[in-house]
């Protein structure tokens, strides 16, 4: 079976990827174009079967990747080149071909399973969740398009194809956040996401340009092989860059000129630029602000795009280019540091949120921070494994939240109220399946021992504690030795926080008494039950409603599957267990991925004695999660939330600050947006005064004057047209009639030997006469275009070129040259500007 498949799809022409990619694209196309006519049943069938087909093909691909021959250092890679896209010009005019090609290895095969698998479950869930929405077909078209773009991102064989997918998922995210675009706030959230992502994408573009220039390729294999180019030190800022400053800006030049040329490793520059892209897409400090707002989209979208798949693209990119990141300890430290700070910071915000989806959103930001800690300390496999487990438990949590909100919608239609945890409580009685799956996922995210989150989080924190990145040579900047421990400490604090706020959310939602409305058995909704009369604010009397209902099966089945994986998914990695009981038949995922990270792993070492630290740190991890859960239980169940209220009463200011997300949005509003507004105002003023005032008036003035002149002359317009042609011809004629005395200067040998060479420009009928200013003028013109001039040290001479053209008209140009054998012996104003030479490859002389 497998050998048949292998002969059908050889490793260098793996066309099965076409099926994986095209099915969702066809689904998007059909749903988008014909969706209205197909009806909801048709759209459901199309969208689900497209993604499911893609999933099946992914499973086959995964098996084939696992079975493909590979060694410990060389990963198996199945690739498919669709077509040759275009060429770009690299360094030294080399041609860099860019192909539309796709490939799959252990890393992308796993990610692709997650995208299509979790994607399918969320598609299934959405058919229930969105069943009553008018934009049903539009929703599924976008969702299918998202799956397609995400697969392009994962499977792209070079950075540019990845970028196409990267932009594609950004677009889908924008479309889906603003899915209910009638609501101003939701449309604004979509825009915010798009803009924050654009800032990051700029970094990615810069990285691509640098890679084309320095490495001469964008494909993964090529980049991995181009390690020597990546390790080069390059001057990024030196005095010579500022030579051409105008004289009146000299003070500025002196100010910014460095003493020594600043040098940087290519890998550092590229990695930092790539990481800017990751910051945007994966919502890290300082660009994380878009992700919480992105919860304005439908809840399945939050689960699929803003928790399970798209936002982890940044981690995927770092893993994909791990061989670049690992070269630069500085870039790795930046990645890990950003991740740690984000993990802690986002967790602190999640403490105070009352909106269920907002809690989950900040928790996503925080978890993404954990993943960056992992990849930043060189534990690429552990970081990426957290992507996988996170996809299960966070996807499940979001879907549970959606299920709860779905139930709340029975009586509460206001968006904020239906997502507010203060209106929930006690739901474990009414929604048993949602409750159980939520609890399992909460345990997983809190790192409860033996759940999936436990294994992934502990592994990456453990690696943070023990790993160091070895620089290629001693000149490379490296972070201090205690840096890893500091990251570990921050991570532990954030982990306690995670356990606490997640169980706070769990207890507030599922325990205690139901606070949404007073439950009336056999409640019949009022006849005029539309969306307006249910807002809490309008009612003084308590709202009555039916018993909150469990969601339909299309929604609960995905919950159960995801919760199942969230609970036991960790065992496919569980490094400590594998060390105790190595199993022949069951290979850990880390082992499966290790060839992919082989190049990068060469730069990662563990500190001596770290083996002994494994079990103690595992104990710390377990203790941390139990402590967080216990604290939440004590505060919200034992004490009924009294300590929290007391805290708010005592430190109200701090609480408000955290509730307002540390006012980061306001900070950006005041600084960056304020700056942009100011620039916009300036531009508007320019527009008003210069464009409208001068240019527009001038143009209309010219038109008016011309029109007036024409009327005066009583000419038909065709004569004017002909006249303009005549004028045009005359101008061309005048140009040809006028001689142009121009010469190129070759001053390369002026300093050592004092020789300057000139070559006058050629032209029909041109005759030339060269002499040195002050010497005798020869009276004959000849066809000799070359001339050379000899200079003594610090001597200055002027060469004079006279040209006579076919119409016997003459033109003269002078060229003054000085041999500057010691600095300052030539007056700077007399040297001809080298600028024009660079621009046009020659020097224009004025006609005298």
């Amino acid at each position, binding site marked *: 079976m497998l050998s048949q498949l292998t002969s059908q799809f050889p490793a260098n022409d793996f066309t099965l990827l076409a099926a994986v990619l095209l099915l969702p694209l066809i689904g998007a196309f059909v749903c988008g174009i014909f969706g209205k006519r197909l009806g909801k049943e048709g759209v459901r069938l199309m969208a689900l079967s497209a993604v499911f087909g893609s999933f099946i093909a992914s499973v086959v691909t995964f098996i084939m990747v696992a079975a493909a021959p590979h060694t410990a250092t060389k990963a198996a890679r199945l690739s498919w080149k669709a*077509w*040759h*896209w*275009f*060429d770009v*010009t690299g360094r030294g*005019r080399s041609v860099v071909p860019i192909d*539309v090609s796709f490939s799959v290895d252990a890393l992308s095969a796993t990610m692709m399973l997650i995208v299509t698998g979790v994607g399918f479950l969320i598609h299934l869930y959405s058919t229930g969740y969105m069943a009553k929405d008018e934009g049903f077909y539009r929703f599924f078209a976008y969702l299918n398009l998202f799956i397609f773009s995400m697969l392009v991102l994962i499977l792209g064989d070079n950075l540019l194809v990845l970028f196409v997918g990267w932009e594609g998922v950004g677009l889908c995210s924008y479309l889906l956040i603003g899915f209910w675009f009638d609501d101003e706030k939701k449309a604004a959230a979509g825009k915010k996401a798009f803009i924050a992502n654009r800032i990051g994408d700029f970094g990615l573009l810069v990285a691509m340009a640098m890679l084309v220039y320095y490495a001469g390729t964008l494909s993964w294999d090529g980049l991995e092989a181009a390690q020597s180019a990546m390790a080069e030190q390059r001057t990024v800022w030196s005095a010579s860059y500022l030579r051409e400053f105008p004289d009146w800006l000299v003070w500025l030049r002196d100010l910014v000129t460095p003493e020594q040329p600043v040098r940087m490793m290519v890998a550092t520059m590229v990695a930092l630029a790539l990481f800017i892209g990751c910051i945007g897409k994966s919502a890290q400090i300082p660009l994380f602000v878009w992700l919480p707002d992105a919860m304005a989209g439908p809840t399945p979208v939050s689960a699929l795009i803003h928790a399970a798949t798209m936002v982890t693209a940044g981690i995927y990119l770092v893993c994909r280019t791990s061989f670049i990141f690992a070269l630069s300890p500085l870039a790795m430290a930046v990645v890990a540091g950003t991740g740690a700070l984000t993990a802690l910071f986002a967790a602190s915000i999640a403490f105070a949120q009352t909106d269920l989806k907002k809690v989950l959103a900040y928790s996503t930001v925080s978890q993404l921070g954990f993943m960056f800690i992992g990849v930043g300390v060189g534990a690429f496999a552990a970081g990426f494994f957290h992507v996988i487990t996170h996809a299960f438990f966070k996807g499940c949590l979001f879907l549970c939240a959606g299920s709860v909100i779905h139930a709340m919608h029975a009586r509460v239609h206001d968006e904020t109220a239906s997502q507010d945890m203060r209106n929930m409580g006690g739901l474990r009685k009414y929604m048993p399946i949602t409750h159980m799956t939520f609890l399992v996922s909460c345990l997983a995210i809190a790192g409860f021992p033996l759940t999936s989150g436990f294994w992934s989080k502990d592994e990456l924190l453990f690696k943070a504690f023990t790993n160091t990145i070895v620089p290629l040579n001693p000149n490379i900047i490296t972070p201090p030795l205690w840096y890893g421990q500091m990251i570990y400490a921050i991570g532990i604090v954030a982990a306690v926080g995670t356990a606490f706020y997640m169980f706070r959310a769990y207890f507030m939602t599922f325990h205690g008494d139901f606070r949404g409305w007073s439950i009336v058995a056999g409640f019949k909704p009022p006849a005029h039950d539309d969306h307006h009369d249910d807002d809490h604010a309008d009612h003084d009397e308590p709202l009555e409603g039916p018993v909150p209902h469990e969601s339909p099966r299309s929604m609960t089945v995905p919950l159960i599957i995801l919760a199942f994986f969230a609970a036991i998914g960790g065992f496919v990695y569980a490094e400590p267990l594998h060390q105790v009981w190595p199993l022949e038949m069951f290979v850990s995922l880390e082992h499966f991925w290790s060839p992919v990270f082989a190049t990068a792993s060469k730069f990662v070492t563990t500190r001596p004695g770290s083996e002994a630290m494994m079990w103690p740190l595992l104990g710390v991890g377990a203790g941390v999660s139990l402590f967080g859960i216990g604290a939440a239980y004590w505060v919200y169940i034992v004490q009924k939330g009294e300590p929290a209220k007391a805290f708010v009463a005592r430190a109200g200011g701090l609480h408000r600050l955290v509730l307002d997300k540390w006012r980061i949005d306001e900070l950006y509003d005041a600084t960056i947006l304020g700056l942009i507004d100011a620039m916009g105002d300036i531009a508007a003023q320019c527009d008003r005064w210069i464009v409208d005032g001068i240019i527009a008036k001038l*143009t209309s003035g010219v038109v008016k004057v011309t029109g007036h002149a024409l009327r005066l002359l009583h000419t038909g*317009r*065709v004569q*004017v*047209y*002909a006249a*303009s*042609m005549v*004028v*045009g*011809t005359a101008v*061309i*004629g005048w*140009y*040809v*009639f006028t*001689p*142009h005395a*121009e010469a190129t200067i070759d001053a390369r040998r002026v300093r050592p030997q004092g020789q300057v060479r000139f070559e006058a*420009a*050629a*032209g*029909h*009928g*041109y005759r030339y006469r060269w002499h040195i200013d002050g010497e005798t003028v020869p009276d004959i013109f000849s066809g000799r275009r070359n001339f050379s001039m000899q200079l003594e040290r610090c001597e200055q001479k002027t060469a004079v070129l006279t*040209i006579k*053209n*076919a*119409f016997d008209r003459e033109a003269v140009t002078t060229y003054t040259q000085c041999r500057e054998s010691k600095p300052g012996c030539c007056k700077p104003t007399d040297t001809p500007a080298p600028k024009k030479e660079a*621009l*046009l*490859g*020659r020097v224009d002389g004025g006609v005298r």
Partner: protein
Amino acid sequence: MSDSVFFAIAPLLVVSLGGLLLMMTEVFATRRADADGPSSDLAMGTFITMLAGAITAFALWLVGPDNLAGAKAVAPYLLVDRFTLFFDMVLCLGGGIAALLAGGYLPEHKLDRGEFYPLLIFSTAGAMVLASAGDLLSLFIGLETMSLGVYAMVGFRRGSMRSTEAAIKYFLLGSFAAALLMYGGALLYGVTGKTALAGIGAAIRAGVSSTDWGILLLSMVLILAGLAFKVSAVPFHMWTPDAYEGAPTPATSFMAVAVKSAAFAMMLRVLISVFGDPLSTSWGTGWPPVVALLAVLTMTVANLVAGRQSSVKRMLAYSSVAHAGYVLVGVVALVEEPGTAQGSIMFYLLSYTVSTAGAFGALILCGSRGKEAVSYEDLAGLGKRHPAVALIFSFFLLSLAGMPPTAGFFGKLYIVSSSIGAGLHTLAVLLVLNSVLAAYYYLRVMEYMYMREPAAGAPIAVPMRSGYVRAALAICAVAVLVLGLWPTSSLSMAIDAALALR
């Protein structure tokens, strides 16, 4: 068989004979009073003829022009090389799309008279002669054959003052330009004693006597002026908006794509074969500085004026002038980067052909009789009322503006990269800045279609229904997308064709 003359010039013969056949059919055909007009079958006939021409040209491409012994018999009057064949394909494509557009447009606007199609075919045949001409005489014959047909097509709407006026203007000015060109050619003959382009070029390269330099320069000036008129470079462009606006839109589309492509083919032949020597290409007395100046003027003036138009058709006319400016940048780059620059020009012309023909076609589709889409206001709210039409119009506009992943993006990219390769950084920067200017008025159409509501009581455009126009748009859209996603094979064809000329 394969060394026959007829085989070598088969694309031209196919198109010409097809034209004659269709004309005869139309003369002797009898129609019942209640039948559809002549467009119903002539449009398809014309399209098939053009398609046959393009396929024949492609077949000859595959055979390889070097293997065509018969080609020598017609040289130097008609040169059969890859350059010719490439342009044969582009011209047939442009003509065929114009025929399809006419098939929808003429009946809708009660202009359904059969003579439009023979005019279109013979004009295309003239353009093909022009693109393959290797001698001043055949060049002039091709130019006039092409132009006369177009003059008649511009004035096709006989009842309309505007159409007639446009035709007369175009005719007068065109004759003026042709006279300049012919006078320049006569002077060249006087200096070198030859009429074949390659022969003249060789004579100039060898050097003329010192008394003849002035005459040679004068002839260059006159020829440059004549060429500038044909490609409608500023300040020789003033006929363009009037003629484009007055002509029936299919004819406009034909002028914008086929006539312009043929004119550029002529320009490339003349500049490379005749004025390709080092003295003529110097920045002292040669054509590069003149063409560079024309390019800058053309891009800038056309884009500035286009932004101020209220009629979409006129805006598209100015936009086609601006695109000629972009191509002229590539022409300047010919001196330093002969292969890639010429390849980029030809790729640009191909991508421009499909984008512009598509844009004019979409404009045709947007309107119906009495409810035409003329001004921006007519298009207001079209995106809501007729999403499919608005979508396809936007697609072509994005291609004209040079957005990826459309053909226009790669066209511009190649021109810019070849001009940077040739060291023309200033021109490249100006080109990019100009395309920003151009984006303004292209996006403005989309703004009206998607973000404006029509004013109360204002006339609104009602899209017409025509299979022909839709087919034309489908062809253009597929071509724009394919060239945008997969530009390499057509680019390498263009570069092959370019090298064949050298």
